[in-house]
């Protein structure tokens, strides 16, 4: 029996390891290809025969990457932080405060999730254009400041596991709801909050469709749009190393953040799935 189990374990391990290669191969191929000279892309072999850094020099010369990264950070850090606290507040209210019509309000909010972005992007474009925002950064910032409905949903679930007596006790001690939120609820839900905001952050870092529509001034383009343009241009004359250098520039920051937060991220995804 034990021997049979050992063999089974070995087979499973090999199977999972093979899958891991498939999962990581595109990234490895991307990194090595980005260091190849253009003429070498049809040669066999994963590793470059000569290491050529010119694609990176080219991309840094050609597009304002620093500006692009700063724009992306501006679109994904402050709005997500503000939006996270707004969402946490709403989740707290839905879970722990008895106010009139809260179930209906919650259902209305939730129904918003079922409406796909492409169905509302044309009027959003018109609204932003009406307020002269298409030349600036605001279309990528404003909607996030009002919170994230999915996050409200998940945090509300999380808060259902916090006993009501905690809130009641604080009320008797004379705390108002904002103090309860700030002093008791926020510290309690910090792990969930951090994990969800990291996921949201990654989502908005990778956003592409919305900025192609809403950002009409090249200065304000996020790095995804800049790199996509760069790559499309070099796809025409099949300068593959330059395209891959572009992809590397996009992926490295996200991979670093993932490397730091991977434990949180995966645990949070698992957690939300169990508590549904």
């Amino acid at each position, binding site marked *: 029996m034990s021997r049979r189990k050992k063999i089974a374990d070995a087979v499973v391990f090999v199977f999972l390891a093979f899958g891991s290669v498939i999962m990581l191969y595109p990234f490895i191929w991307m990194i090595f290809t980005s260091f190849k000279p253009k003429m070498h892309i049809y040669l066999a072999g994963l590793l470059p025969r000569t290491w050529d850094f010119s694609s990176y020099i080219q991309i840094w010369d050609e597009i304002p990457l620093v500006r692009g990264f700063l724009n992306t950070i501006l679109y994904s850090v402050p709005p997500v932080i503000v939006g996270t606290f707004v969402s946490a507040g709403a989740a707290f*209210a839905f879970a722990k405060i008895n106010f009139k019509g809260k179930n209906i309000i919650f259902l209305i909010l939730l129904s918003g999730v079922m*409406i796909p972005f492409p169905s*509302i992007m044309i009027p959003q474009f018109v609204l932003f254009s009406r307020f002269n925002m298409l030349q600036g950064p605001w279309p990528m910032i404003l909607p996030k400041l009002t919170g994230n409905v999915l996050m409200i949903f998940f945090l509300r679930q999380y808060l259902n596991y916090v006993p009501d007596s905690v809130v009641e006790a604080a009320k008797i001690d004379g705390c108002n709801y904002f103090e309860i939120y700030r002093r008791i609820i926020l510290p309690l839900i910090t792990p969930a909050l951090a994990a969800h905001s990291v996921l949201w952050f990654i989502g908005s870092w*990778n956003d592409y469709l919305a900025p192609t529509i809403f950002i009409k001034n090249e200065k304000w383009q996020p790095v995804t749009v800049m790199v996509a343009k760069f790559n499309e241009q070099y796809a025409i004359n099949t300068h593959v190393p330059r395209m891959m250098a572009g992809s590397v520039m996009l992926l490295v920051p996200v991979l670093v953040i993932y490397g730091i937060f991977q434990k949180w991220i995966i645990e949070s995804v698992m957690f939300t*799935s169990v508590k549904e």
Partner: protein
Amino acid sequence: MKRKKSYFHVWDNIWGYAFVLIPLIGLVVFVLIPLCMTVYASFTSWPLGQSITSAKWVGLDNYITMFNTPLFWKSLGNTFFYMIGIPIGLVLSLIYAALMNRGTRYEKVFRVIYYTPVITSTVAVSFIFQRMFMSDGGVINTYLSAIGIKNPPNWMSHPAYTKWVIIIMAVWKGLGNSIIMYIAGMQGISKTYYEAAKIDGAGWFYTFRKITVPLLMPVTFYLVVTGIIGGAQMYVEPRLVFAGNGPANSTFTTVIHLYDNTFRYSKAGYGSAVATVLGVIVFVITAFQFYMNGRRERNE
């Protein structure tokens, strides 16, 4: 005493509304008002760039045009074709989750590896897949020839294969997420079920089919709903992998149709009609899934 209670009640209401006010404003301004505008605009001949209020009312014209446009049907067919990836992804991730959840060594390392594609940028990944699937020097066909496949498919240029590039990419990118969800679901299943099955002499596969899979239904349900919502909005992958609509419009999707008509040809009225139909499809499918799930739960 009674008065004091109602005093608290008032403050409960005020604080409650205060906390939910901002998300509610967000919903109204960024979702509900635009939604109404989309539906209204779909009945007008509104050219983008003009004020929507001055647009001419044309009744059902846009819808009639749309239903008579072969490209629209093509885009809808492609969009649904891509959803083949959903069951493929579910089966694969269920297998991988089961294998990872049996106390395998390095299980946590595997989880991190399989989840990596999920967090990466679709833009970056699209260009990688575009090049890996090239018939001319692409790695995929090099490997296929190496394992003895004589004529590997022309992934990028033959309409029968182009959609599969997108599907393979979407499955590869989404697999980690469903694996993690399934593992979490499996860890939530009480051990007593398995012990009882063991006493009854049930085999591994029988237990998996009769206990694990049914008890994971809520996870499967969630993944199907999010898969459909995401799949219906497919835009970036076909646009960037195929630098356009693909050979014979084979990778063209409904959102590309909507985008091009609105933002390239300025036919915002027609675009709004496509946007309305897309919204209705997503809404109906999701609502139907929720209904079925609710009915199943009541039956249990």
